[in-house]
């Protein structure tokens, strides 16, 4: 079994359009939640979100490529470029055949779908653009990464709603660990801001009208976010041999299914995934310093997640630092696990724990240390990052300081 390390990291998120900006915003504890401005909000109840603002596709892509690139593909490509450049790996020199590309996404090209439905149903137009299907398909972000970088090993998209990216990273990790591939490009992407998608979320009655305050008394639900994070994984041996900078080690992965309610979280499923992850990583609960929580800011998730942490960590739960960075970058859905693992690694490397922003008041049912308001200077050696999805898919990734 190979040890698996991260040697490249790329982020494009509401908190920053690259890893350096993203990390600085996390440390500053500033929330990127604000008025929705990238789409028209007339007819929407929800007026707030965490958007990637001032993103100009033409600054990144040739104009003739854009008919193939939905916003979610654009994000994935931008993040992958940063991660691959940092890793200094060249996939065209033979390594590409021994490299996997595994990307998570919740829905894929929602903007493209929305635009085409508007043409057909609203504007009464008769035709779709010929590249509509390849642009909106959920695997598009993944295949364009392979094409741009010449990666010819296994590639596919993993879809498990809000656990998609953690599942993608977990699968990529296992492929590198087992020796099936030598390296992997993995992460998640989502571009959720379309009128139709937001109306759909509103209908679930879980959207906060004010802001996202995970684990806090007075929380009113979730706030949507968009973006992507991609990382390059390889074996510890290969990173050492070529003198690559190791950003972190992926230590383990655990995943379970609730097999109960479509939207309500379940204690057994959530705690089971955490326990499985620790077992896979051969970590004792006492070794974990920090938990990047799923922490959506809904009543149901935050109480269940707190209970799951108590159940697995016992007495050590009180010593854990737990934060939800969704309070700053919103819930990026299929990208969440990747954006949040990136946040965890940024904190590890920067010597800080990202805070739970917007935290107002202690909820008696959420009684852990949520690092409220401000980032905390602290060395983190071991962390886990939780994702618990609609459908009852739970996925937890453990990461160690390099």
């Amino acid at each position: 079994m190979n040890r698996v390390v991260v040697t490249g990291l790329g982020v494009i998120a509401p908190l920053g359009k690259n890893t350096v900006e993203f990390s600085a915003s996390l440390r500053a504890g500033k929330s990127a939640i604000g008025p929705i401005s990238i789409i028209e909000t007339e007819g929407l109840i929800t007026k707030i979100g965490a958007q990637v603002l001032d993103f100009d596709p033409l600054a990144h892509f040739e104009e003739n490529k854009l008919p193939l690139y939905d916003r979610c593909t654009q994000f994935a490509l931008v993040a992958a470029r940063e991660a691959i450049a940092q890793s200094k790996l060249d996939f065209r020199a033979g390594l590409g055949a021994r490299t996997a590309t595994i990307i998570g996404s919740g829905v894929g090209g929602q903007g493209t779908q929305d635009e085409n439905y508007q043409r057909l149903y609203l504007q009464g137009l008769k035709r779709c653009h010929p590249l509509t299907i390849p642009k909106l398909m959920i695997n598009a972000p993944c295949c364009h990464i392979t094409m741009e970088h010449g990666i010819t090993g296994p590639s596919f998209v993993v879809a498990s709603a809000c656990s998609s990216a953690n599942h993608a990273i977990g699968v990529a990790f296992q492929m590198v660990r087992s020796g099936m591939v030598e390296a992997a490009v993995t992460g998640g992407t989502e571009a959720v801001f379309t009128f139709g998608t937001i109306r759909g979320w509103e209908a679930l009655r879980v959207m906060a009208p004010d802001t996202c305050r995970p684990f806090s008394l007075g929380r009113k639900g979730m706030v949507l976010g968009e973006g992507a994070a991609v990382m390059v994984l390889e074996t510890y041996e290969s990173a050492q041999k070529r003198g690559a900078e190791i950003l972190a080690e992926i230590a383990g992965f655990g995943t379970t299914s609730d097999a109960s309610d479509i939207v309500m979280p379940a204690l057994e499923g959530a705690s089971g995934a955490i326990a499985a992850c620790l077992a896979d990583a051969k970590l004792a609960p006492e070794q974990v310093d920090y938990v990047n929580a799923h922490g959506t800011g809904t009543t149901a998730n935050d109480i269940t997640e707190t209970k799951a942490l108590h159940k697995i960590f016992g007495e050590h739960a009180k010593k854990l630092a737990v934060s939800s960075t969704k309070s700053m970058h919103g819930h990026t859905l299929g990208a969440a696990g990747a954006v949040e693992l990136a946040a965890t690694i940024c904190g590890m490397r920067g010597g800080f724990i990202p805070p739970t922003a917007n935290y107002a008041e202690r909820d008696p049912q959420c009684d852990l240390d949520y690092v409220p308001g401000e980032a905390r200077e602290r060395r983190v050696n071991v962390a886990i990052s939780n994702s618990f999805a609609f459908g009852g898919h739970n996925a937890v990734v453990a990461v160690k300081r390099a």
Partner: protein
Amino acid sequence: MADVASDVLEVIAKQAKTDPAKVTRETELADLNLESLDTIELIFALEEKFNIEIPYNANEATTAGINFTTAGDVIDAVAKLVQEQKGSAA
């Protein structure tokens, strides 16, 4: 008003898959085994039937002064919103 009350009780009974005769103003929604998704489906059904927007957030006990504990609470909220709807349409 009486029509609204009977229509609301009928929609609640349908969502709870129970006999409409068993649902009264005093019936608590919790006693009808309406789970989280049933409640939001119920609200959707009421919005569609009466062409109103019901402010409801699953994360709050009370949203915009509306608390859905009993069937009577639902009737009163819907009646008020229907009245407001008529007022704004006039």
